[in-house]
C-alpha cells in the first residue's frame, strides 16, 4: 500500500491537487495512454513530496526525511545576496515531478531524435555511440561505447534511464546507480551519508532539493579501490517548466580514487526553468575525488529571453587525513548561475582544489566561486578561477577562504583572472578571507584583461576567422583549467567555449 492510497484532502490542501495527484498515479498503470508527460501537478506541498517519494518507491524513513526538509523550507526565505537579478520565481508554478516521454517510448534510432539536440552533440564532438546513449535510443547502452571508457548514467529530466558498464564496476566493488535505486538497495549507506555534507537546512535551494529531489546519481568506492573508469552523468532538461532537483552523493572510502564527470546540454526553451541540484562528496582518509563539470544549459537568447536558473549546492567533505578533492568546472550555460563548489578540509593534510571557467555572454549572469574551509592542520587549497564576460553579461567571482584556529600551517593560493570581450559586460571579484591562526598563509592574485583587437587581427592575418580567433584566445586564457579536465572532456569543453561565444565579436 502506498502513501497515496490513503491520501485524503487535509487542511490546506485542496481537493483538486489530490485528484490530480491520484490521476497521475493512474497513468502509471495504463488507464490513460495519450499523455505526453507523466506529470505531477504544478506546485509543491506535502502531498507532492509524498508523491515523489512514492514514485521512487522509497521507504518510510526517506519520505520522512523529505518532509522534514520541506517543513524547514517553508520557513526559509530565498537568498538575495548574490549579484544576480531575475524575476521572482513562483515556486507554486513549477512542476516538481515529470517523467519524460522518452522514458516511456524510447526512440529507435537517432533519426527520431530532435535534430537540434543532435546538432549540439555534433558541435561538441561527442562520439556517435555516445550520442545514441545520451538520446536514450533503445538498446544503445547495451554495448560499450568505443573510444573512451566512460560509464554514462544518463539522467533525462527526473528519471535515470540507462546505466552502462555496470558489470565492470560491480567487479571492482564500485556502486554506481541512481540515487533512488541506492535508497532502495543500499539504505545503510544513504542513511549514513545523505545530508551529512550539505545538511537539509543548509540553504534555501538545498533544502528545497532535499524535499523534492527526483533522482540523481550515487557512487560508492570501497576502501583501497581505484575506480576502473571515469564516471559520467549527462543531465538534460527536457520538459518545459519542469523543476530540476538532482541529488548526487559520492563516497570515496579510505584510500580510494574516482574521477566523476558531469555534463549537460539542453535544447532551446522559451520559459525560464529552475534547477537546484545538490552534490555531496565524502572523502575519507587517503582517498581522492575529482569532480568535473561541463555545464551547457540554455543561457537565454541574445536578448536575454529564456534560459535556465541554476542554483546549485556542491560541497566536498575531506573527512579523513590526506583526503583530496578537485572540483573542475566549465560553466557556459544558464541565464542565472549561483554556484559555489566548496571544500571542507577537515582531515589533517587534506587538500582541495577548485578550477573554474565561467563564461557569461549576452544577458547571462553568473555568480560563482568556491569556499575553502580549512579546519585540519597542514591543509592546502588552490583556487584558479577564469571568468569570461561578453555581450552584456555580468560575471562575479565570490570566494571564501577560511583558516580556522586549529588549521595550523595551512596554505591557500587563489588566482582569479577575468577576461572581458567588448565594453558592455562586467567582471567582479569578491574575495572573503578569514585567517584565525598565525601560521597559515593566504595568497590572492587577481587580474582583469581585455581581448584586444591587435590579438584578433594577428590571428585573422594568419587566416583564422574572427570567431575561431576569439575561441583560440579565450581557450588560451583558460588553459590552466582546461588542462585539469580529463582529456576527452577537455576537447568537448574547448568546443563548448567556442560555441558559447558565437556572435560576441564582429
Amino acid at each position, binding site marked *: 500500500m502506498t502513501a497515496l492510497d490513503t491520501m485524503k484532502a487535509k487542511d490546506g490542501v485542496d481537493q483538486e491537487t489530490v485528484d490530480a495527484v491520484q490521476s497521475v498515479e493512474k497513468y502509471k498503470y495504463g488507464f490513460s495512454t495519450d499523455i505526453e508527460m507523466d506529470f505531477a501537478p504544478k506546485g509543491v506541498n506535502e502531498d507532492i513530496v509524498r508523491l515523489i517519494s512514492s514514485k521512487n518507491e522509497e521507504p518510510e524513513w526517506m519520505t520522512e526525511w523529505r518532509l522534514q526538509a520541506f517543513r524547514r523550507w517553508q520557513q526559509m526565505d530565498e537568498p538575495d545576496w548574490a549579484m544576480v537579478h531575475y524575476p521572482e520565481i513562483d515556486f507554486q508554478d513549477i512542476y516538481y515531478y515529470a517523467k519524460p516521454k522518452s522514458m516511456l517510448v524510447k526512440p529507435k534510432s537517432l533519426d527520431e531524435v530532435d535534430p537540434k539536440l543532435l546538432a549540439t552533440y555534433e558541435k561538441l564532438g561527442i562520439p556517435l555511440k555516445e550520442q545514441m546513449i545520451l538520446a536514450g535510443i533503445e538498446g544503445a547502452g547495451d554495448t560499450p561505447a568505443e573510444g573512451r571508457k566512460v560509464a554514462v548514467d544518463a539522467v533525462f529530466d527526473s528519471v535515470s534511464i540507462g546505466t552502462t558498464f555496470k558489470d565492470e564496476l560491480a567487479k571492482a566493488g564500485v556502486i554506481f546507480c541512481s540515487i533512488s535505486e541506492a535508497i532502495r538497495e543500499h539504505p545503510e549507506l544513504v542513511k549514513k551519508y545523505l545530508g551529512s555534507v550539505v545538511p537539509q537546512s543548509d540553504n534555501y535551494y538545498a533544502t528545497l532539493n532535499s524535499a523534492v529531489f527526483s533522482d540523481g546519481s550515487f557512487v560508492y568506492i570501497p576502501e583501497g579501490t581505484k575506480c576502473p573508469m571515469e564516471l559520467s552523468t549527462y543531465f538534460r532538461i527536457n520538459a518545459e517548466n519542469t523543476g530540476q532537483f538532482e541529488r548526487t552523493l559520492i563516497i570515496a572510502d579510505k584510500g580510494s580514487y574516482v574521477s566523476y564527470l558531469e555534463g549537460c546540454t539542453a535544447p532551446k526553451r522559451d520559459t525560464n526553468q529552475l534547477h537546484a541540484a545538490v552534490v555531496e562528496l565524502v572523502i575519507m582518509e587517503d582517498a581522492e575525488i575529482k569532480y568535473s563539470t561541463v555545464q551547457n544549459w540554455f543561457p537565454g537568447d541574445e536578448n536575454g529571453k529564456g534560459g535556465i536558473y541554476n542554483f546549485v549546492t556542491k560541497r566536498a567533505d575531506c573527512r579523513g587525513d590526506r583526503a583530496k578533492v578537485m572540483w573542475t568546472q566549465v560553466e557556459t550555460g544558464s541565464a542565472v548561475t549561483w554556484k559555489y563548489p566548496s571544500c571542507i578540509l577537515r582531515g589533517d593534510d587534506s587538500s582541495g582544489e577548485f578550477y573554474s571557467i565561467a563564461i557569461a555572454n549576452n544577458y547571462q549572469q553568473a555568480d560563482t566561486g568556491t569556499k575553502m574551509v580549512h579546519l585540519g592542520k597542514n591543509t592546502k587549497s588552490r583556487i584558479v578561477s577564469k571568468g569570461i564576460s561578453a555581450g552584456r553579461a555580468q560575471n562575479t567571482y565570490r570566494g571564501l577562504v577560511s583558516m580556522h584556529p586549529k588549521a595550523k600551517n595551512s596554505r591557500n593560493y587563489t588566482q582569479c583572472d577575468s577576461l572581458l570581450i567588448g565594453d558592455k559586460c562586467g567582471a567582479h571579484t569578491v574575495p572573503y578571507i578569514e585567517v584565525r591562526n598565525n601560521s597559515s598563509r593566504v595568497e590572492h592574485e587577481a587580474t582583469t584583461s581585455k581581448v584586444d583587437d591587435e590579438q584578433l587581427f594577428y590571428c585573422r592575418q594568419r*587566416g583564422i576567422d574572427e570567431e575561431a580567433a576569439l575561441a583560440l584566445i579565450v581557450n*588560451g586564457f583558460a588553459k590552466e583549467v582546461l588542462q585539469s579536465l580529463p582529456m576527452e572532456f577537455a576537447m568537448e569543453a574547448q568546443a563548448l567555449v567556442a560555441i558559447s561565444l558565437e556572435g560576441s565579436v564582429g
Partner: protein
Amino acid sequence: MLKIENLQVKLEEEDKQILKGLSLTVPSGEVHAIMGPNGSGKSTMSYVLSGKGGYEVTGGSATLDGVDLLAMEPEERAAAGLFLAFQYPVEIPGVGNMTFLRTAVNSQRKSRGEDEMSAAEFLKVIRAKAKSLKIDAEMLKRPVNVGFSGGEKKRNEILQMAMLEPKMCVLDETDSGLDVDAMKLVAEGVNALRDGKRSFLVITHYQRLLDHIKPDVVHIMADGRIIKSGGPELALEVENNGYADLLAEVA
C-alpha cells in the same frame, strides 16, 4: 603580383590622411624594398593591405593577382596568399605556438577547399623549418610570442611565413632590433622562400638587410606616397646620405 594604385587612406577616428596616393607594383617572383622616414606610412600600408580595422580607404585600389584585396576580410586575404610579418608581433597567452600555427595552416587550407594537414605531417614540416631558423622544440611549445626576445619574435614571424607558404610576403621592419646573427637567420629564411614566383615587399631602414636579401627594386616612401624608385643602389644612397637629399628633390 601585388598592384597598389593611387591608394588613399585616412584614419577612421580622425580626419588625418596617411596614405596620399600610393602606387606600387611588385611583379610575381620579385623582391622589392621600401625605405622611408619614420611616420611616412609604411606600416599603415601593410595594415591596410592586410585589412586591419581603424583605417578608411578613401580612394585607389590594391589587388593580388587581379583579386581586389580591399573587399575581403583579413582572413580571406591571408587565404588568398597575403602574409604580413608584423613590426610588433602580438603575444597570445596560453595558446601554444604550434597549436596556433596548425590552426592557421588548416584554416587557410579549409577556406581554399584543400585537405587539412595531418598532425604528423605538420609536425614533420614544422620541425624541419624551425631547425633552419634555430627555433628549438621548447619555443614551438611556448605560448605565441609570450616572453620571446625581440629576435625570437621576428624569427617566429619568419617561421609562420614559411609554414603558410604565401604568395605575397610583406615584412615590416623584420630586421629592426636584431643583432647581426639573428638578421642573417631572418635573411636566410626569406631567401629560402624565394622560388621565382613568390613576391616580397621588405620594409626596412637598413641597407645591411638588403646585403643579404637582394632586392630587385627599392622604393622610397615619404608622406604617404612613393617619391622615388630605383635599383639596389638607391638603398646605398639612403645609407650614405639619409633621406634629406631625396626629400629635397621632390619638394
